């Protein structure tokens, strides 16, 4: 820290005896030391928090507002994925089982707000089964009288043309209604089970995912 205390660009006018020099600069030195430690801890821990709060490492697959981290469900998961999973306490969906796509925003980049009517519609990627789950930002299911927390491919009502149409909103609607409980900052998770391997490996050619549109807000 001898170097740290010395001023950049400052040239001593005379060579001071080393003991005397260090005596004089010790308050400055300890202040520099404290500043270094404080910046190091703050920057380092904030970076770690940011890196593990909303994703699971590298290799993100993007499709519209949907995100997936196929690598996190394999033995090749990178240290960021491992850290994020350990912190949240969840076990990832294994890539051999399938792939999970998460959406926190609608198509226009707006946070999914449960006080609004939101429509999920379109084609889904090929998979043997899929499930759609609605949670709050903490990963908890949304409480509702119907006990409806999501849909599975086996129970959903399909549109005539083979597309899916799910209405999310605080009030009951006809068709596939997913109650939002009027909560803000919702998270949708679409899990595709026994999905084709290509879905996770094509990073340039994003899979066709259903659109998410906020239709009406109070």
């Amino acid at each position, binding site marked *: 820290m001898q170097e740290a205390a010395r001023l950049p660009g400052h040239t001593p006018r005379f060579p001071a005896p080393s003991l005397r020099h260090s005596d004089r600069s010790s308050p400055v030195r300890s202040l520099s030391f404290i500043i270094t430690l404080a910046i190091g801890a703050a920057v380092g821990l904030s970076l770690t928090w940011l890196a593990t709060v909303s994703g699971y490492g590298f290799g993100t697959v993007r499709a519209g507002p949907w995100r997936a981290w196929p690598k996190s469900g394999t033995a090749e998961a990178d240290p960021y994925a491992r850290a994020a999973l*350990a912190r949240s*306490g969840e076990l990832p969906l294994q*890539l051999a089982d399938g792939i999970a796509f998460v959406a926190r925003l609608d198509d226009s980049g707006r946070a999914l707000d449960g006080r609004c009517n939101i429509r999920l519609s379109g084609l889904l990627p090929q998979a043997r089964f899929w499930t759609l789950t609605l949670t709050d930002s903490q990963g908890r299911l949304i409480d509702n009288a119907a006990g409806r927390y999501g849909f599975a491919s086996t129970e959903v009502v399909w549109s005539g043309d083979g597309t899916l149409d799910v209405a999310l909103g605080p009030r009951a609607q006809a068709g596939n209604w997913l109650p939002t409980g009027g909560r803000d900052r919702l998270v949708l998770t679409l899990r595709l*089970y026994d999905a084709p391997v290509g879905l996770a490996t094509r990073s340039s050619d994003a899979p066709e995912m259903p659109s998410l549109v906020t239709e009406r807000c109070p």
Partner: protein
Amino acid sequence: MRAGGDANPLMRLALPIAAGLVLGGIVHLVSVLMMPYMAERDAFARLSAIAGTNMVAHVDDPSPFGAVLPNSDPAFVTAVCLYDLAAGPLKVRLPTTPDYTSVSFYTRLGLAFYAINDRAAGRRVIELDLMTARQKAALPDDEDVTAADRLVIESPSTTGIVLLRAMVRERGTREEVRRTIEAATCGTAS
């Protein structure tokens, strides 16, 4: 205070700030690498609260008031077997349902290392032998370990997690699926 410092206090701060940023990078990397070892509420800890070792325990369905594991799929019935291979290999057995049924293996630190579903297994009952690399190497040579009816899974760690899961086709069938999962076994091979 020396004259040079008073003249330019910003310059005086430049070095501690630069050193702080470098230290920040190191703190970041170390904390990311340490997190799986330091996390007190990781998946293994959460499951240890409801399950013993080398036995199948039912995992309560997630509800709006909480879940054993965050972000688990509510469309599935789940059971768990926390394993410890110190005493010997483990035999895992899970009857399948007509819909998606899977056995997924994770290390003690939550690293996903193997999963197989009903279709990949191609049989009514998924049967697996779980063992460490050393135990696998110690298997007698005359035993045909590559036989189709015997799937040997090598665990990279001595302890870990086996998730046994089956999808519920519609709400009415949840109890039926639960009974199937309850028939699963996980114990030391005799």
